[in-house]
């Protein structure tokens, strides 16, 4: 994408970073590793200092202000004022691809993958919703759920843009902040 990037696993590797992506994975494992790698405070300070953050799936859970169905001890950095429900779309058999129109992303809908994805259940007043997905939930109800949200310095998506290879949301992240 024409920008320098590096993997951040230790506090020293965060120095000089302007844009930080917290990727997918298991939010409980990421949460634990944030503690054990002494990254929790540096990342929280990065967020509080207005650093640009992009969280996808588990990354969105870590950045959220409130987590439903999480572990009691898991990290919610509160970098963006949203509430998320872990695995809100159901188990892996309910994982899916969808074509989404994302506000601010031109060139047609993005095809993206939701994998055991979190559902955004509440959006704070300073958060805008850039895309939503209509979905028939395991309880039988069809509802629309926010799939991409942004605040002043944070972008989050409940899906994984990289799984389907579309880099437009990453471009939006770099251009927006």
């Amino acid at each position, binding site marked *: 994408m024409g920008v320098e990037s590096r993997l951040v696993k230790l506090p020293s590797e965060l120095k000089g970073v302007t844009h930080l992506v917290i990727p997918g*994975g*298991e939010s409980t494992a990421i949460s634990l*590793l944030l503690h054990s790698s002494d990254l929790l405070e540096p990342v929280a300070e990065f967020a509080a200092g207005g650093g640009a953050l992009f969280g996808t799936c588990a990354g969105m859970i870590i950045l959220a202000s409130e987590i439903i169905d999480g572990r009691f001890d898991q990290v919610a950095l509160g970098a963006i004022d949203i509430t998320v429900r872990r695995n809100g779309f*159901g188990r*892996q058999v309910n994982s*899916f691809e969808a074509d989404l*129109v994302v506000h601010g992303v031109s060139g047609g809908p993005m095809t993206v993958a939701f994998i055991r994805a979190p559902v955004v259940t509440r959006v704070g007043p300073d958060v805008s919703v850039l895309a939503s997905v*209509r979905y028939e939930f395991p309880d039988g109800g069809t509802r629309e759920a926010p799939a991409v949200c942004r605040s002043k310095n944070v972008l989050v998506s409940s899906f994984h843009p990289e799984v389907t290879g579309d880099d437009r949301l990453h471009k939006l992240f770099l251009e927006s902040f």
Partner: protein
Amino acid sequence: MTEETASAVTKATARVKRGLAEMLRGGVIMDVVTADQAKIAEDAGAVAVMALERVPADIRRDGGVARMSDPALIEEIQAAVSIPVMAKARIGHFVEAQILEALQVDYIDESEVLTPADEAYHIDKWRFSVPFVCGATNLGEALRRISEGAALIRSKGEAGTGNVVEAVRHLRSIVGDIKKITQADSAELHGWAKELRAPYELVAEIAEAGKLPVPLFCAGGIATPADAALVMQLGAEACFVGSGIFKSGDPAKRGRAIVEATTHYQDATILAKVSRNLGVPMVGIEMDKVDVHLAERGW
């Protein structure tokens, strides 16, 4: 503001199946036989658990036919943790796989650790919505499984031995042949397909990408943080740890240490730190003392 979307939702695509494996990369999947063990695994930072009735070391000790776990046990484990739950079906036993799909396990392991149900055919994994992981001892075996629909490959190693030597052999074989294929010219690719008894299209895909079309994890014999880091440095993208954790003296501590070692697999200072005072490891077996070679099951 909300953009109106007319989103068409498609489930169980190859990308969605492989996508979950992508999300487990860099992590540890732990074998568990009870809900309590599953919680210990989640507490230790496992990215998923494999629910089974007996860990491979016990299957090896007890003998007899090893089958799919009791659905009640799998459900208990699903209820106990929030991370993905995998379960094993016998090689070729597509009805066990149908049952596991009905239980909504997150991944099915068509596993040589259980007694094979079919000596000719593996399960046609394309027919399922739940993704499959399969073991492989070499690249040909890996590609045949992918061609049958596997969304994740794990090198087999020799389960239940606490001895990492076979895992290293299988991983080196797979990764080594991938490297050679990336150097091959187009005529040689056909030779590779023939030699590996694998579809030419998959061989050509490897030549182009320099890696398998699905993630490559490692299993079978990992017992220490150093073992986990070893297989990661050799090219595995994540580790399955079976008997190595819950057959050791302090599973919670060892599990946690193996998780940290898998994350920081290139940092010897951290590896030294997490390897300290872990208590008794599982007792290993040397390969010439192994009477049943599980890795030879499957073809």
